[in-house]
């Protein structure tokens, strides 16, 4: 997520340049325990909970097992595997020797140094761990070698580490890391560590099997929804269908008459039915007649929100960037273009429906959940129960998808409230309908964008005004300063193009009656669509090839040029296509990663959009686990395509109109294009990988539709826009 500051055109966004501080000690049981003290990025320090004392832990047990306390959660992105690779690479152990366990919630110990608190998101995990975990591995390796050299009374330079052993080369004597761990723990941590050159990597850069995969193919993987606590009840919930509304009254008897229903819990804005199993809970909830006080949003519709945003967008916003003199340049331009781009509210629909299991006891509280924000889960429970945070235990689980939804703790707080009324543990499970109708949504955006071109058709002025919700202002208030939200404008402030005069301003407009939150690819999920759609309009106005036009504006950004050229080449850019079939391009530099996509789309005479193929070229720096990178891009493209074609949450009478996968569509296998991913060899530090594929996709699709039909689409989703022939 672009909670991380970035400098122009550079991919080192949020990188940690300062040294990691390591300390070593003897672990219980005789192992070597390394603790890492990580400097927070300036941003992390500003937005977070304060200084971080000790950040991550690596332990080598007497049996040689390397144990990693994993502050980052696994939601499909492969982070358990990729992070384990970093330590294994420098430590010289096989990946199979590394075991990991979820870190407990503790911002002091496990803050994400790029964010400032314990959070997984924003494609930051590898960027945050790349340097410190390799340094920790290298330091441990050097200490183990020293321990062996002392043991053998030989020179360290005659020893080498490999596969969890230290070998004395002249004599071929060997000692395992487990045998050496206790002695190594008594040695000083080296002042300087030498990290491997990338040519020396044996793990990084080679496809590694996901460590979490075996349990995910035989039903043994335990997600939050699979938590089983003795005596546990199951609850499901109906919150007021209008956001901000309250419960007026409910006759509990109809639910209580259902077999296996044990209890009805009334909250201020919701009703939960508690039962022995979800079947009974759902049946009990369906039997209830609930009266709501719908409150002031009772008549709200999407059209109301959009007209408010349109009005708000008329006035200048907070300036995010002002380079040169846009007004003057625009006045002198030969061709002027302006457009309005709009993006809808979107739900996340993680496959694992929202759930949280809670046991509130007299002096403590236990929570079983899959969350991207462990410490926030703990603190929301503490504030509701009145318990000190240390009395709240959070057991984290695998996440059945995150996509930003599990950065929020609304459902955790709700489950804790329900649990305070229940004797014993209770698992609160939302139905899919509740998930879609009480999500926190990717905001609606209403963007005005204009440009002036010179005689050659090249841009001399670029003005982009963004109007929409600031998630950051709610999510991380210290990061929202003077009306400026660096996430919402990310991808718009610094498009990679050489624009001489640029003005980007931001009008914060919080829609009434609908909560907003981060969604996969966060700020760029909207900005890249606008920037890459509009640059395509400029190319068309200049009567130039859209790829050539972009390349001309990218001459100072070689990594962006390279990915665009590669994607164009692999896609057959410029080669003839059948009637009503076209190719569209996008290129972006966000999350520390450069990416280009070329989509090939056919539009039927009836307006049916068929995406045949997507070619993606990516330069994400050093590719830690290349197969995971390909998987992330394939998945991110499908996530973005789903949204581009179908994704739209609308309100009528204050209620979300969509309810399940029949009217809030997900793509099925028959709708998925061929996707080719090409990874550029790079020596740069790794960039983020979970998000970029999603933001780059929608503009490539609408640009391809333009190439196929001449119809320019500036509003998503595409599904409702007529692109019929004739």
């Amino acid at each position, binding site marked *: 997520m672009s909670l991380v500051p970035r400098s122009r055109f550079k991919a080192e966004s949020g990188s940690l340049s300062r040294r990691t501080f390591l300390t070593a000690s003897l672990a219980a049981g005789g192992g070597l325990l390394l603790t890492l003290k990580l400097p927070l990025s300036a941003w992390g320090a500003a937005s977070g909970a304060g200084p971080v004392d000790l950040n991550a832990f690596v332990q080598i047990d007497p049996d040689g097992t390397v144990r990693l306390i994993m502050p980052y959660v696994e939601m*499909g992105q492969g982070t358990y595997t990729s992070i384990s690779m970093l330590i294994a690479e420098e430590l010289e152990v096989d990946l199979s020797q590394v075991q990991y366990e979820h870190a407990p919630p503790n911002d002091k110990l496990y803050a994400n140094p790029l964010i400032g608190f314990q959070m997984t998101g924003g494609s930051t995990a590898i960027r945050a761990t790349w340097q410190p975990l390799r340094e920790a591995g290298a330091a441990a390796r050097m200490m183990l070698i020293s321990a062996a050299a002392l043991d053998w009374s030989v020179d360290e330079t005659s020893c080498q580490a490999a596969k969890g052993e230290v070998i004395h080369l002249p004599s071929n004597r060997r000692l395992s890391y487990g045998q050496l761990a206790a002695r190594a723990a008594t040695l000083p941590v080296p002042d300087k560590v030498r990290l491997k050159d990338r040519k020396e990597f044996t793990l990084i850069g080679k496809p590694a099997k996901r460590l979490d995969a075996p349990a995910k*193919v035989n039903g043994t993987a335990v997600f939050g*929804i699979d938590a089983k606590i003795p005596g546990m009840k199951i609850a499901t919930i109906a919150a007021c269908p209008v956001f901000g509304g309250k419960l007026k009254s409910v006759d509990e008897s109809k639910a209580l008459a259902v077999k296996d229903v044990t209890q009805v819990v009334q909250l201020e804005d919701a009703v939960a039915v508690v039962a022995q*199993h979800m079947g009974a809970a759902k049946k009990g909830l369906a039997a209830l007649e609930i009266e709501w006080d719908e409150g002031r949003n009772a008549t709200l519709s999407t059209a109301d929100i959009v007209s408010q945003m349109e009005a708000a967008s008329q006035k200048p916003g907070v300036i995010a960037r002002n380079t040169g003199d846009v007004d003057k340049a625009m006045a002198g331009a030969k061709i002027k273009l302006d457009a309005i781009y709009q993006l809808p509210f979107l739900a996340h*629909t993680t496959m694992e429906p929202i759930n949280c299991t809670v046991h509130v006891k007299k002096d403590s509280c236990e929570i079983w959940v899959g969350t991207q924000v462990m410490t926030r889960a703990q603190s929301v429970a503490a504030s509701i129960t009145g318990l000190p945070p240390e009395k709240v235990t959070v057991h984290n689980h695998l996440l*059945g*998808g995150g996509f930003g939804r599990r950065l929020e703790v609304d459902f955790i707080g709700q489950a804790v409230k329900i649990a305070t009324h229940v004797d014993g543990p209770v698992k609160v499970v939302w139905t899919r309908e509740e998930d879609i109708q009480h999500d926190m949504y990717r905001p609606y955006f209403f963007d005005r964008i204009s440009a002036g071109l010179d005689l050659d058709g090249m841009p001399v002025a670029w003005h982009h005004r963004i109007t929409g919700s600031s998630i950051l202002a709610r999510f991380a208030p210290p990061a929202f300063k003077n009306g400026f939200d660096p996430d919402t404008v990310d991808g718009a402030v610094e498009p990679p193009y050489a624009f001489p005069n640029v003005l980007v301003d931001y009008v914060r407009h919080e829609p009434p009656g609908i909560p907003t939150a981060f969604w996969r690819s966060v700020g760029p999920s909207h900005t890249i669509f606008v920037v890459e759609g509009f640059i395509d309009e400029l190319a068309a106005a200049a009567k130039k090839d859209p790829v050539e036009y972009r390349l001309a504006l990218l001459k100072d950004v070689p990594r962006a040029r390279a990915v665009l050229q590669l994607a164009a080449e692999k896609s057959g850019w410029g080669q003839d296509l059948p009637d009503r079939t076209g190719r569209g391009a996008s290129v972006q530099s966000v999350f520390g990663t450069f990416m280009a996509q070329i989509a090939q789309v056919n539009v039927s005479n009836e307006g049916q959009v068929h995406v045949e193929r997507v070619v993606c070229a990516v330069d994400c720096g050093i590719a830690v686990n290349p197969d995971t990178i390909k998987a992330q891009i*394939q998945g991110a493209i499908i996530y973005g395509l789903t949204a581009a074609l179908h994704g739209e949450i609308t309100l009528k009478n204050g209620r979300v109109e969509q309810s399940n*996968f029949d009217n809030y569509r997900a793509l099925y*296998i028959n709708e998925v294009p061929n996707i080719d991913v090409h990874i550029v060899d790079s020596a740069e530090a790794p960039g983020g990988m979970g998000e970029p594929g999603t933001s780059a996709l929608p503009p490539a699709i609408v640009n391809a539709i333009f190439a196929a039909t001449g119809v320019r689409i500036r509003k998503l989703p595409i599904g409702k826009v007529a692109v019929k022939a004739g």
Partner: protein
Amino acid sequence: MPDQSVDVDEITMAFTTRINGINHSVDVDGDTPLLWVIRDVLGMTGTKFGCGRALCGACTVHMDGNPVRSCAIPIERVGDAAIVTIEAIGETPAGKNVQKAWLDLEVVQCGYCQSGQIMAATALLAANPNPNDDDITNAMSGNICRCGTYLRIRDAIKAAAQSLSPHIQNG
């Protein structure tokens, strides 16, 4: 198998269901979806809840060998049909090969939908050991994966078919 599905005590509406070869008696309302019997009453959590309306396929199990959405099958309609879930599918040749192909091709991401995907794929291969692309599309088009693992699912089904019947060329 003796027929144990008829319970004399109609007041408690107990049902006996054969899952993975073992009979389980459960005392629930007859309209309780099989999914919740499997997950909440019997505690077998490999079968997943996704939509509750047979739209996503996460809850797919086999009923007498056919893939069904357990969220939409009331327990009273299961009768003495044999139910197989993800926990036991690896004991069948098709299931074992599908699971192996899933690992070989690194299909999973978050993994939540994969129980259902594997159950659907296994039913396909058990019935049709040499599926072509259309067969795969038809069999798998009710299973949603929000991580977007579809391309690998398709490839893994082909790989599993190949290892099941190595002498047959994939169509």
